[in-house]
């Protein structure tokens, strides 16, 4: 066993022991504790838990990689995935907490006095959450197989087992306290290597400032200047300038923001605080804890890309390639990632060295042949995980990153599974099928639903449908076009009635789905797309992932128009809306 593997087993093992210890300490004994942790979680702690819940394998592993390769254009994810919290704090969270129920579909069903609305919300919730879980399960598998060098499926089973123990036993209560621990692990794991690398490159410890600082290599250039110059010299697109269309960036940011505010597993977290005013504070604290990672990520992305290029090109930008990485002397991280298939090269010109250039590169080698890019594949997902190895940081830091990635994936998976199981046991079983079951039976139903959801998620993680990469657009599209507008109108537009709300949700959802399927294939079945998925076919250049904002707009317009032509909601519903608008009289730490 190598030194790195020993460190990884030790660090990952210690974190797992901690999670299980917390799970046993915080078992849930009532449905209130199982669904909303008895509504007794302090806002700062709840903010941490929400941060871990929100920051998934995608945030931890993929986002910095996205930034590394897209530069400025990746800002949409940074703004989109944080700006949504403003909408949550001001438009949804305090009011939904005042209403004081357990699930998002329950509010939609009650407010629009319609089982149909509740069922539409449940379906959106389950589809959005399940698609999200697949990615987490895959992330856990990748982290295990790369760092512990055990087969992918064993890693997945181990991950499923851990989630099973603390989510099924503890429900929301167990999940919340475990997520707090997981937040600490993941943020430590993310920031420590970032600080190391920022110090190496710029001499400034904070990556937030390092990104804007002078390079410490004596070149007298700022890091971002150096990035732009290196990338352009090598035939890549410049880092800080815009590549995509402004309209598409605008709509994608908007879709991600309202999608974030409409994702049920995030909203549910706000049901766990004692008071309405705590719901507002929780949103702020959540964003503080999220912002620590999200403002570090741009530095991580830029520095990882620069290190990667410099490692391969050995800082030589001239046609002279004699400094480039030699194929018979590849560093260990390079060969390790090559084994996973996420990194591939081909010595096209047979010079025994690797050339890493962009498609605009015009240079020629010593024999007068055009230099071609020989890094055939650099998967963006390896950037964060390989970053500490590329920068030659100590093994314990690399082990920490593995534990952090697993913590991020586990905490989000648990939150999503909880949202799915409570939708099934509370909205479908208790709400529709068997209305008169008692608390104990419902709790059991919740646990069974959770166990089933874990098995389904594990199966999908082992056999990911071909569309796994596409589904993020779907999850955000669903949340943005159906759930967010319904919730917002439920609170802010007293006049919206059941017909308006249901038609609004269905039309917003329907048009968004059609637009996504049109370019990605019906139900993502390969070969059924109606038009190739590229900018020249998109209506007004709007990508399928950006369409959620348009769907939301359609939802608002249809719901408001239809409601104005049909009877207003009954009096008790209007009183309900008036009641949720004021904090006074919210129920404390009890079930209902």
């Amino acid at each position, binding site marked *: 066993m190598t030194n790195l593997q020993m460190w990884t087993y030790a660090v990952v093992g210690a974190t797992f022991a901690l999670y299980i210890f917390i799970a046993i300490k915080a078992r849930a004994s009532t449905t209130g504790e199982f669904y909303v942790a008895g509504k007794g979680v302090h806002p700062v702690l709840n903010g941490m838990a929400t941060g871990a819940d929100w920051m998934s394998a995608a945030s931890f592993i993929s986002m910095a990689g996205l930034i590394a390769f897209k530069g400025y254009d990746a*800002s949409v994810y940074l703004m989109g995935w944080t700006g949504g919290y403003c909408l949550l704090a*001001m438009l949804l969270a305090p009011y939904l907490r005042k209403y004081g129920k357990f699930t998002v579909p329950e509010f939609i069903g009650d407010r629009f006095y319609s089982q149909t609305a509740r069922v539409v919300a449940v379906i959106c919730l389950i589809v959005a959450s399940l698609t999200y879980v697949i990615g987490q399960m895959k992330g856990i598998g990748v982290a295990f197989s790369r760092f512990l060098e055990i087969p992918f499926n064993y890693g997945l089973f181990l991950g499923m087992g851990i989630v099973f123990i603390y989510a099924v036993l503890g429900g929301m209560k167990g999940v919340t306290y475990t997520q707090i621990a997981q937040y600490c692990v993941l943020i430590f794991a993310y920031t420590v290597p970032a600080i190391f690398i920022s110090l190496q490159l710029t001499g400034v410890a904070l990556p937030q400032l390092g990104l804007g*600082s*002078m390079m410490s290599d004596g070149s007298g250039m700022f890091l971002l200047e150096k990035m732009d110059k290196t990338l352009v010299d090598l035939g890549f697109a410049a880092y800080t300038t815009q590549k995509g269309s402004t309209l598409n960036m*605008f709509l994608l940011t908007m879709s991600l923001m309202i999608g974030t505010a409409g994702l049920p597993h995030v909203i549910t977290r706000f049901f766990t605080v004692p008071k309405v*005013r705590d719901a507002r504070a929780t949103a702020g604290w959540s*964003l503080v804890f999220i*912002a620590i990672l999200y403002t570090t990520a741009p530095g991580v992305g830029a520095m990882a890309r620069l290190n990667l290029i410099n490692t391969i090109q050995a800082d030589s930008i001239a046609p002279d390639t004699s400094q480039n990485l030699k194929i018979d002397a590849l560093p260990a991280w390079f060969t390790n990632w090559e084994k996973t298939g996420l990194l591939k090269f081909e010595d096209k010109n047979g010079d025994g060295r690797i050339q890493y250039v962009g498609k605009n590169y015009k240079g020629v080698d010593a024999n007068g042949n055009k230099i071609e890019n020989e890094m055939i594949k650099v998967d963006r997902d390896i950037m964060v995980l390989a970053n500490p190895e590329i920068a030659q940081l100590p093994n314990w830091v690399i082990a920490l990153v593995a534990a952090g990635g697993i913590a991020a994936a586990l905490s989000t998976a648990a939150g999503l599974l909880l949202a799915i199981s409570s939708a099934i046991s509370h909205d479908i079983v208790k709400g529709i099928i068997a209305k008169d079951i008692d608390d104990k039976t419902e709790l059991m139903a919740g646990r069974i639903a959770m166990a089933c959801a874990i098995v389904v998620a594990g199966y999908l993680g082992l056999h990911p449908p071909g569309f796994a990469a596409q589904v993020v657009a779907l999850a955000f599209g669903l949340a943005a076009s159906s759930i967010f507008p319904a919730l917002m109108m439920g609170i802010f537009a007293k006049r919206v009635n059941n017909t308006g709300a249901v038609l609004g949700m269905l039309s917003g959802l329907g048009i968004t789905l059609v637009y996504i399927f049109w370019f990605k294939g019906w139900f993502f079945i390969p070969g059924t797309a109606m038009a190739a998925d590229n900018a020249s076919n998109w209506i007004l250049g709007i990508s399928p992932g950006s369409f959620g904002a348009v769907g939301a707009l359609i939802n608002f317009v249809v719901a408001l128009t239809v409601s104005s032509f049909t009877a207003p909601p009954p009096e008790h519903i209007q009183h309900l809306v008036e009641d949720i608008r004021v904090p006074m009289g919210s129920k404390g730490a009890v079930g209902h």
Partner: protein
Amino acid sequence: MNDAQKYWQANIRLVIGCLIVWFTVSFGCGILFVHQLNAITILGGYPLGFWFAQQGSIYTFVALIFFYAWRMGKLDRKFNVHED
């Protein structure tokens, strides 16, 4: 207008004000006017538009939520609709 309506109106005014700032720092400075702002550099080598898109907007969002929560707390007391 009764107190409940006044409270609600003050709330809406506050939310609209906050959302204008929210929109300006992200969609305005980070996307629509990013080219113009990139002519200015801050904190060393950050082009301003780029900084707003990848750093500044996020800091503003955090400040905005706490500001909103603080102002709403005051409104709740003023209209006597606060908890406990």
